[in-house]
């Protein structure tokens, strides 16, 4: 096997793993959009907020310490204890649920049957709010998130693949980040369980019913409001997982919220309403942009990731407006 070929494989594998992460984020969007027709721009910030909270609780930070210090001239920051990761995660989940409830109670509830664009704007407002809020609550400094996930390249794989290259070629074996692998595994598990949840549980079915029409949902016997809370909670949970993965990888900081932007092309590709679409779309985008960067990037100055996904999705959409799995839109006259 030629080295180039192996490199390509490596790139593809990396792409796939990145793709899984994209899907993970995209999933958050899809869930909310399906259930409430809201394009929740805040999804990314939710991930950031979740990660911040997790770190905060873990390291026993005092919430709002900066603010307090600014006002009372005190100088406090930590309780001085550590919270075990599992408990911390549990607590964070709790926080996200509370968050979901607040969002439903104080925002969505007042915006029912507004045009989509209004709701969209509202979520952008929400994003701004939470960004500021998160920073004030936990501080805006870059934090390292350690939930005991492995990191670094996988030696085993390197050694294993070392000999694959053809004779006389420089090849040091295949490099894959452990974290990425774990992340992909987690993501896959999550995706599968979510799919099962929405397919085989009453609540899940109710959620899908809402997507189709609200009356139907009510007839299932679950109030719209509860459904929305549930959905936003799940989205919050997904955000948390995404936050952990990305946070563990590249630290918890503002840029984390930008993963939302990563997920958008995935949505275009997969459609706003389709879970499988989100997954496949994610993989396509992941592989696509890695390959493009690998093959063409160098020629045009690199850093193509931040737009290639969009252009790819755009091209695709122009030929198939309803996305990968989105149901065909027939214009009723």
């Amino acid at each position: 096997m030629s080295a180039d070929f192996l490199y390509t494989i490596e790139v593809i594998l990396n792409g796939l793993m990145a793709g899984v992460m994209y899907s993970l984020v995209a999933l958050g969007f899809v869930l909310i959009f399906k259930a409430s027709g809201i394009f929740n721009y805040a999804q990314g910030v939710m991930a950031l907020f979740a990660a911040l909270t997790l770190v905060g609780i873990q390291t026993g930070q005092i919430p709002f310490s900066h603010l307090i210090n600014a006002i009372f001239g005190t100088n406090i920051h930590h309780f001085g204890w550590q919270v075990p990761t599992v408990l911390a995660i549990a607590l964070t989940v709790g926080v996200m649920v509370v968050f979901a409830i607040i969002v439903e109670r104080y925002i969505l509830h007042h915006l029912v049957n507004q045009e989509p664009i209004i709701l969209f704007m509202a979520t952008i407002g929400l994003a701004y709010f939470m960004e500021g809020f998160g920073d004030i609550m936990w501080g805006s400094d870059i934090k390292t998130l350690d939930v005991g996930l492995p990191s670094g390249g996988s030696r085993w794989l390197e050694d294993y693949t070392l000999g694959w290259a053809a004779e006389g070629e420089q090849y040091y074996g295949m490099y894959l980040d452990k974290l990425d692998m774990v992340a992909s595994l987690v993501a896959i598990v999550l995706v599968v369980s979510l799919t099962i949840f929405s397919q085989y549980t009453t609540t899940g079915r109710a959620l899908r019913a809402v997507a189709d029409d609200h009356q139907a949902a009510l007839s299932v016997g679950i109030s719209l409001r509860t459904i929305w809370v549930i959905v936003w909670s799940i989205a919050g949970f997904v955000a948390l997982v995404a936050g952990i993965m990305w946070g563990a990888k590249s630290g918890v900081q503002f840029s984390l919220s930008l993963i939302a932007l990563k997920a958008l092309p995935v949505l275009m590709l997969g459609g706003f309403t389709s879970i499988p679409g989100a997954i496949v779309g994610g993989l396509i985008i992941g592989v696509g942009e890695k390959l493009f960067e690998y093959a063409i990037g160098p020629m045009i100055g690199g850093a193509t990731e931040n737009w290639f996904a969009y252009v790819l999705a755009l091209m695709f959409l122009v030929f198939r407006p309803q996305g990968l799995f989105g149901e065909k839109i027939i214009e009723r006259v």
Partner: protein
Amino acid sequence: MFYRESGDFKKTYQKDSQTFPIKFDRMRYYFVLAVAFLVIPMFLTDYMANAVMIPFLVWAIAALGLNILVGYTGQLSLGTGGFMAVGAYATYKLMTAFPGMDMVSIILLSGLITAAVGALFGLPSLRIKGFYLAVATLASQFFLVWLLNKVPWFYNYSASGQISAPQREMFGVIITGPHATPVAAYIFCLVFAVGLAWLARNLTRGRLGRSWMAIRDMDIAAEIIGVNPLMAKLSAFAVSSFFIGIAGSLFFSVYLGAAEVTEAFGITVSFAVLFMVIIGGLGSIFGSFVGAAFMVLMPVLLKNVLVGGMGWPTDLAAHFEYIIVGGLIIIFLIVEPHGLAQMARVLKEKLRLWPFPH
């Protein structure tokens, strides 16, 4: 309450279809113009000019542009930042390439260039609708920024990757570059803002504008009365981008003086302008101005209160700003989804009916 309409009747269609058919409104409009052109320049401090008035006018122009697209044609776009960047870089290239050319033509040309780019990126709107389109426009945002960042030709191979506006004069007064006089810059922007608002009004009240609104309200019906969706949407993208391009051009040449594409024209810009349009009121020229005023003034106020008044560290104040901006937007959307313009409209109706409640 202030309206006296008896005897204010119209004998011609010109009079009946003028922008301010009611005398009182007309007077108010002229009054505002007079203040803007004659009074403000007399009391305008450099700080006020640079921190408030000039940005306000520039953003107002951008908001006008986006409003044409989102408010009048119903095509949601998040590419504003990218288009402003195009306007800015076009201006930079023109200024450096043709030192002799006067600013007005330069800015108008930049607008036209942006219009062309905008039309190009508008093409997908034929197949794609709603949020798909919104996301698609993000493509232009990222791609353009990346392009302007990666191709050195755009910033004349300057090491910093920055572009900075050389000094230019109008009628012997310096309006760009480090030595520009704020008042002159203000007037310069004001002229553009007023002119473009007038332009927007003309375009939206006529055949073209109606075709836009038709597409927005009911594209099928629009098509059967002869509106070609392609032309309607592309023209909207072009005109909108023309405005936004000019905004970007002024933003760079008159307001910032120097800019680096990734931070000056990032996606936050796109959102900011969208906020202005929504808060101001979709499909309202007046709204575009109010929205811009709101988004410009509030941070200034907050900064003055929190940092200046309460002596907080700036970063904390910045975070608070986010919270408050976000919160206000949500509150606005809940209280009056159709924006400040709608509030104004309602108020006006109430005043006209006064003392009757309805």
